[in-house]
């Protein structure tokens, strides 16, 4: 177990180093003038371009810039935003709570809806409720998040104005729970609906596979109640692929729920990314990219650990 963990963590660090290198090359490789021009934007005056070249040391050889970049990264220094002159790490930390609340709230919702729906579907395949769920799943995966979001705002503002739900910036629940909920409920549902559809499908498929296995027949043969067979024996084993997907999804989303955050005007990592891309704020873009990758790497490690708990047949070596 420990050897496995250490190996995965070392491997994860190598992946992050590769990501950092790729991002660096993507933005800094090429003639200094081109790079400075790209950062300044096509309409910036030549003095600004020269100034950027100067402050960033774009004239230095590429390997020198690269090692400077890696050195700063190792010290946890992600640089300073061109636009707001704030350290990138501060900007990211400011935006993180909005994204964290959004993702975790939505994750709870979509796991309940998705796994619940999948189990309901799989215990009675081809029944009316299974077919109804299949149609709902198709609707869920076919609704683009930004369309669903705008639709929800439209409904909340013009059709059901009494609900008090409204789009708006993130407010900490420790300051004002009411305001927190009124801005968060819609993004939670919006994100969860799209995700839940995928999970219903995944859980259903996995449950159907598992319920045909020998150990389920054994459990039934020894007189375990059907309810217990479904949940204790079936669902537990069937959750393995669901957990994989869950880990990857949460990891990816923590790196910025770009669409949902923007549609609802929630200040999170996704909004920070959009803003920095619009402004050409390179340090923030690079910082956000590396952080997003780190979340995915960490999520993958956690998923592998979770395996060994869920499925007794899996032993980590």
């Amino acid at each position: 177990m420990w050897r496995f963990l250490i190996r995965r963590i070392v491997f994860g660090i190598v992946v992050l180093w590769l990501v950092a290198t790729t991002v660096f090359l993507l933005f800094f490789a090429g003639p200094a003038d081109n790079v400075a021009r790209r950062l300044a934007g096509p309409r910036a005056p030549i003095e600004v371009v020269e100034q950027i070249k100067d402050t960033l040391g774009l004239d230095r050889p590429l390997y020198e810039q690269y090692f400077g970049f890696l050195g700063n990264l190792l010290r946890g220094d992600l640089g300073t935003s061109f636009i707001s002159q704030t350290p990138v790490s501060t900007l990211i930390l400011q935006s993180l709570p909005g994204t964290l609340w959004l993702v975790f709230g939505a994750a709870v919702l979509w796991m309940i809806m998705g796994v619940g729906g999948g189990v309901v579907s799989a215990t009675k395949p081809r029944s009316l409720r299974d077919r109804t769920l299949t149609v709902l799943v198709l609707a869920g995966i076919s609704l683009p998040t930004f369309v669903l979001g705008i639709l929800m705002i439209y409904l909340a503002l013009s059709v059901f104005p009494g609900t008090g739900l409204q789009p708006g910036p993130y407010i900490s629940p420790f300051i004002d729970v009411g305001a927190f909920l009124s801005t968060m409920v819609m993004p939670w549902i919006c994100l969860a609906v799209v995700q839940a559809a995928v999970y219903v499908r995944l859980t259903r498929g996995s449950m159907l596979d598992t319920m045909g296995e020998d150990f389920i027949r054994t459990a039934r043969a020894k007189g375990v109640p059907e309810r217990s067979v479904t949940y204790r024996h079936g669902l537990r084993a069937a959750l393995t692929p669901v957990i994989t997907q869950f880990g990857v999804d949460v990891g990816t989303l923590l790196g910025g729920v770009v669409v949902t955050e923007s549609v609802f005007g929630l200040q999170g990592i996704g909004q920070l990314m959009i803003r920095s891309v619009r402004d050409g704020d390179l340090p923030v873009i690079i910082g956000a990219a590396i952080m997003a990758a780190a979340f995915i790497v960490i999520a993958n490690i956690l998923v592998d650990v979770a395996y060994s708990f869920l499925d007794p047949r899996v032993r980590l070596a």
Partner: protein
Amino acid sequence: MSASLWGRFTTRATTGLRPSASRFPDLSTPVEARPEARPRMFSATGIAGLALLSFLAALAVLGPILVPWTAADRDFEAFLQPPSANHPFGTTASGGDLLVLTLLGLRKSLLIGFVVAVAATTVAALVGAFAGYFLGWVDRTLMWVTDLLLVLPAFLVVAVVSSGHDDWIALVVLLTAFMWMVTAKAVRGVTIVMRDREYVKAARFMGVPSHRIVLRHVVPNLASLLVADATVNVSAAILAETSLSYFGFGVAPPDVSLGSLIADGAPTALYAPWTFWWAAGLLIALIVAVNLVGDDLRDRFDPALRACA
């Protein structure tokens, strides 16, 4: 059957798929009662999806030609007007005809979606088949690249790089670059199973060069998997393109996409709903159609793939 979960875990690291005899439709065994009956290609829902998709494609190709307005036209007597005989979909705040704009957006989104899906699936087939056939360092290198691209935040990179290019071809290349990885892993898994089949061995012992075996014997036999995955990739590509265009990082003016139209219409959706709903409705219809076809193909060819890949 008892090996399936086990297989699912172990193969995640090694082959990506469990070896299963039923992965490909067995065309030698009749599906229906009569021995001469060929297996049906589509179910009722698949046919419905195909019909809707054909209709939308025809609309996208022919529509803009038949409408008397063009994308650049401005009707200075109708700003933000609801649908009328003159403008069946209404007009934008600057007097543009929404019917022609929506149809052009549909055309662009459909085109980008299809081109990206075909290109991404081609890349996936080549990378996966070469990695799975050669194994060893070829496999390790290709899978490193695959895993790295899976970790890179695609939206951010595509948004940054594409904002430097106004060309929609550049957008296609970028979207392709971030869309082939999952399919490649699935292809690799199937190839690892396939490389031990008799016909591949026979070709090898006959002295056929390896790259030729991959291109002539392995890839063609993956056709069913690839067709199903390409279709799923179409809806993913359309969603990715429209989301990027929604933020202004996708297709650049004067080109329009359903995503950019939805973004333009969203602020006025409350009091001028026609600026938003036509584009939104067509986008949903398009994705539903592609998903209906894709689900059908996937159920036919490969019921367990998504769960493992």
